Every structure is written in structure tokens, then in C-alpha cells.
């Protein structure tokens, strides 16, 4: 909880840079995993780098209007904001640049800035597919967010704080101190919500690549798409880090930097893998089906988590 100092700007930039690279590699790995499940060889590990550089290097571009132009900016601001408001690694100054600005409530609401930017940008493009996809996305978000909120309430009561740093700190000192083990019900509710937020199968009808081409950004191209792609590399990482922080003990700063990064990598990777695991195994839900799913089981688990936390703590 420090105040502002100028080196934090540098730290924040480095955080974003680090996460972009990490996100790209993660994308490569996930793509590879998807391919192996389909018995293919799959993309090269560095394929996402090619894609993103190619996209930034596009020569021509078109713009549908002011909001269309600003949409990706909003989107990226939202993604980068979450990243620098969330502690990536506990007590590491480099990865805690602006965590003093707010707690988990700030982060969970800041997510919507990106959503809004995307929705507005896609909307101004005037393409009906964008609007259809946005309605789907918002509807699904509204459905899964409630169980996430219940889970956050549950652990907030458990740890008596909503500061992410404090929550991580409370989980230190052994694997069994993780929320996963101290409050498994809340973790279950949150991890189901996580599936929805990652927009992977069975909840990927928002993007619906062939039916309403790639969802909200259907009209996006060139640098605009490049910015969105960059955001897409950091956004899942930011979300995953948030879940790791809240439910899997976060990442503490070990004596060895290497160990710290290995732990960071493993935790985020395996949390991410959970959505991939589900994604490759299940077919797609319709939107109304996924809403019904989310307001049934995850909600029930979330309510149990809150009630249990209320009784116990």
C-alpha cells in the first residue's frame, strides 16, 4: 500500500511487457495442447508472435467511426488496468506497481471497462453480428458473475478483507492454507465461473467463429485487431492471476527468482489448463442453456459457500 513514485510507471510498463510475452507463449502452448488432443501436430510454439506482429504490420486500415476507433483503446486499457491493479507476485515491487489503487472490487469492476469498450466499438461498426455477440456475451457474463461474486464474498468473510494482497498473505505458509483447501466450496463456485469468463467451449457461443464470425470484433482488422489481439494475450493471464491470487495461494517471492517464476508459471498454467481441459471435452452450449447452467449449479454452490462462510467465520 505505497503511494505513487515515478519508477512505478516503469514497473507497470515492464509488467505489461512481461505479461504480453508470457501470454503469447501460453497461447502457443494451449494451441499445441488443443492440437494434440485432436491428434495433430499443431501450431509452432511461437506462432502467436508471428500472428501478432503480422497484424501490427498490416498496411491498410479502415475505421467505422470514433467509437470504433476508441473501442480497442478502451479494451486494452481495461485489460492492462486489471493487470497492474492486481499483484502478480506477492511483495515483488516490480509486479505490484499500482496495487495500492484498489482492492478486488476495483479489479472485478475494472474488467467491465474492456467489455464496454469492445461492445461500443463493435456496435459502431454497424454490423449486426457484433451486436448479437455482445448480447450473448453480456448475458453470459451476467449469469456467471453472480457465482463469482458469491465466492468472493465467501472468501472476503473468511479472510476478513477484500484486499488482494492481504488475501494472498493469508494463504501463505503451506499448500493447505490455500483457499482451495480452506474453502473448497467457494473455490468450486469460482472455478465454474472461471469457465464462463474464459469464453472457451462449452461457453464459447459468444465468439461463434463461423456463425457470427469471431463475435464482437467481426469488423475489426489491422491495427485495431492487433490491439485487441494484444489485449487477448494479457487478459486471460490477468484473469488467471486473479483466480490464482484468490484461490490458489497466489505467488510469493521466493529466494530464488527462478523458483518464483516457475511457481508463477505452474499455477497460472494449471488454472488456465482447467478451462482448456473442459473446453476440449465438451460441445457448445446455447446462450440460454449456459445462463440456465450458471444460475443452477454454480449459483447453488456459491450460496452454500456464502452460508457456510457466514456460519464458520
Amino acid at each position: 500500500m505505497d503511494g505513487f513514485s515515478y519508477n512505478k510507471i516503469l514497473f507497470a510498463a515492464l509488467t505489461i511487457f512481461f505479461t504480453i510475452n508470457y501470454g503469447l507463449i501460453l497461447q502457443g502452448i494451449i494451441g499445441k495442447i488443443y492440437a494434440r488432443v485432436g491428434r495433430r501436430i499443431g501450431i509452432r510454439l511461437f506462432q502467436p508472435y508471428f500472428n501478432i506482429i503480422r497484424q501490427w504490420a498490416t498496411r491498410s486500415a479502415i475505421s467505422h467511426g470514433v467509437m470504433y476507433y476508441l473501442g480497442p483503446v478502451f479494451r486494452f486499457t481495461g485489460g492492462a488496468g486489471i493487470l497492474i491493479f492486481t499483484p502478480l507476485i506477492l511483495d515483488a515491487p516490480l509486479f505490484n506497481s499500482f496495487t495500492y489503487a484498489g482492492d478486488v472490487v476495483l479489479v472485478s469492476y475494472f474488467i467491465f471497462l474492456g467489455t464496454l469498450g469492445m461492445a461500443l466499438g463493435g456496435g459502431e461498426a454497424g454490423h449486426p453480428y457484433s451486436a448479437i455477440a455482445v448480447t450473448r456475451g453480456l448475458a453470459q457474463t451476467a449469469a456467471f458473475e453472480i457465482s463469482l461474486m458469491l465466492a468472493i464474498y465467501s472468501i472476503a468473510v473468511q479472510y476478513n478483507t477484500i484486499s488482494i494482497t492481504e488475501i494472498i498473505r493469508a494463504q501463505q505458509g503451506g499448500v493447505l492454507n490455500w483457499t482451495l483447501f480452506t474453502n473448497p466450496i467457494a473455490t468450486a463456485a469460482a472455478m465454474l465461473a472461471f469457465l464462463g469468463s474464459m469464453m472457451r467451449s462449452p461457453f464459447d457461443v459468444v465468439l461463434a467463429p463461423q456463425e457470427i464470425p469471431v463475435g464482437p470484433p467481426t469488423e475489426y482488422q489491422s491495427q485495431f485487431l492487433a490491439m485487441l489481439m494484444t489485449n487477448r494475450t494479457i487478459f486471460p493471464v490477468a484473469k488467471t492471476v486473479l483466480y490464482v491470487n484468490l484461490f490458489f495461494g497466489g505467488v510469493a517471492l521466493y529466494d530464488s527468482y527462478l523458483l518464483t517464476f516457475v511457481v508463477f508459471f505452474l499455477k497460472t498454467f494449471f488454472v488456465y489448463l482447467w478451462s482448456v481441459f473442459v473446453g476440449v471435452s465438451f460441445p457448445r452450449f446455447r446462450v440460454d442453456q449456459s445462463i440456465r447452467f450458471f444460475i443452477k449449479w454454480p449459483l447453488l454452490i456459491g450460496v452454500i459457500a456464502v452460508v457456510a462462510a457466514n456460519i464458520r467465520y
Partner: protein
Amino acid sequence: MAKMNYKKRWADLEKRIVVSPEGEEFEVDPMQDYFCDAKPRVHPPNKIAPLEKFANWCRAESIYILGFGTGCGAIEMRPLSSAMYDAYRFGVNWRATPRQATVFVIGGYASVKTMKRIVRSYEQMQGPKFVLGLCSCTINGGMYWDSYNTVNRLDHYIPVDVYITGCMPRPEALLDAIDQLKKRIKSGRAEGQNKYAENFEWYKANQKKIIKNWDMPDYSW
């Protein structure tokens, strides 16, 4: 006498009189008001050669194909994404919208009607964009060489980077063509977009010759 109403136009594209909420009447011309009618521009390569070379390398290694089946050859493209051929390992990916694709695979014969859509989709693609002509039909009309309704040579209408012969060519041929395209891109010769912009009038005249009811702006942005 022939009763056929051959020159019928789509009513939604005609000029129309509308009444504003204040009751004022004015004319809306969809072709003028709803479509951008700017001409395409030439986008020269980056003057810093190494940067351009690097960008070309990335462009070559990241090929986003427009998933748009224009003819019977399109069926040969599908196996590429299967485990058998797995084009993904060469950096190939499919996008469902021209806005985000870089390579347009013309899958076989192009009838006049299809040609109209091909032109439109091609113009809607961004960036350095590349065209693969699949099958003989794109080269000389193939078995439709004397058809009243199928174009004979594609490169009169849009610039083509690589042709693939055969009727049908196998997926391996397509993979090979992609390889050829990569080489072409890396060597900086695949400037089809600029060629199109430079020779825009010529291409347009050719297109308009066969597409008689030209009911769209000259360049579909």
C-alpha cells in the same frame, strides 16, 4: 417479343424519398449515402528494409485464409485442417471474415455471379493480401472454357499470386502452393494489393465488362 425484365435492379438500392421526423422530405441515394466511394490507395512497403523484411517474414509465417468456398475446389481446402495434413503447423489459420484474413483462396471456377462476390470480398480484405488460384478453372476456365457464364482467367479481374493446376489438385498441391506463396512473400514480390490499386481502372473495366449489373461502389471498402 421477349417479356423478360432483364434490367431489373434491386429496389433497396434505388434512390428513395424519405420523410424526416420534422416532416421534411428529402432524397436518399443508398449508393452515395451508405457506401464509401473512395478509390484504393497504394501502400508502399516500409522504407526501412530490414523492418519490411521482418514484417514479410511474419506475414509469410502467419497465413490467415479467408474461409470462403467459391467453387468446387473449396472442398480440397477442408482436409488441410484435419490431422492428416494439419496445415496449422505451417502457420495457416482460417478466418471467417475477410477483414481479418490475408490470403484469399479462389476455390475453382468463378461464374459471373461468384466473381462479383469474389471482387467484393477481395476488396474488403486488409493489408498486404494474397490470392491463391486453385484448380485449372481459375487459370483458363478449365472444363468451363467455353461456358457462357464462367470466367476464363482470374488474373484479369484480381491480382493472383500463385496458381495451382489440376482438376482437382490434391491438398498436398495446395500445401505446396502455400509454400510457394511464403517464398514469394518473403522475397517481397507479393505486392498484389498495390498492383491492384495501381491498375485499378483496368481491373475495374474488366470486372465491369462481365458483371453487367454493377450495382455496388467501385471499391467495396
